[in-house]
């Protein structure tokens, strides 16, 4: 079985400062890992994904994430927050043993202050 833990339910940053959203996973198989963003009253949009290629993955809007197998982590970062980054972020894992059914973390709400 697989699981995902997003370590912070809320993260608050000032505009222009770095963003760190933390995600740890548990999986018996080699995982595929994703980060999705959901703006208020909108659907989910893929930010980036890891699928066993490069461990540092770059996504849209300046976001990136690093897969660290030894730490079972896939933290999402951005060097400089923008007001438009305020949204809900979901870390997702899917594995072959789970029929690739995506398992979602509970989400992290990113708040960006002017």
């Amino acid at each position: 079985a697989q699981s995902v833990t997003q370590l912070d339910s809320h993260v608050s940053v000032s505009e222009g400062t770095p963003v760190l959203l933390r995600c740890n996973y548990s999986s018996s198989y080699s995982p595929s890992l994703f980060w999705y963003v959901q703006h208020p009253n909108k659907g989910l949009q893929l930010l980036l994904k890891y699928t066993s290629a490069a461990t540092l993955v770059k996504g849209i809007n300046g976001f990136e994430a690093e897969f660290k197998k030894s730490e079972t982590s896939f933290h999402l970062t951005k060097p400089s927050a923008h007001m438009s980054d305020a949204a809900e972020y979901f870390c997702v894992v899917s594995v072959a043993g789970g029929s690739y059914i995506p398992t979602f973390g509970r989400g992290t709400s990113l708040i960006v202050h002017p």
Partner: protein
Amino acid sequence: GAGVSQSPSNKVTEKGKDVELRCDPISGHTALYWYRQSLGQGLEFLIYFQGNSAPDKSGLPSDRFSAERTGGSVSTLTIQRTQQEDSAVYLCASSSGNQGGTIYFGEGSWLTVV
């Protein structure tokens, strides 16, 4: 189609009525997923289709919930005798079903039971 399409986008129904929610996945995607997102909550897995069969329906909350998929394409989620606790956003997603396949989400069907 170009993306995952869901209808209706909004539905208000009276308690006790039946509702049907439709999902039209991306053409060629064999895997289809239904999730539920309640206010302020994460995503709750409901059911997974591979082609027309549902190998995992473990997330359906009660026997009032059912889903089918025909022609390996369109899926319908049916909720019978709706209750107020069924009020949520119902999200449909599709993917190639292979490891690392990106999961694409629709905009969701917002259900309100009054």
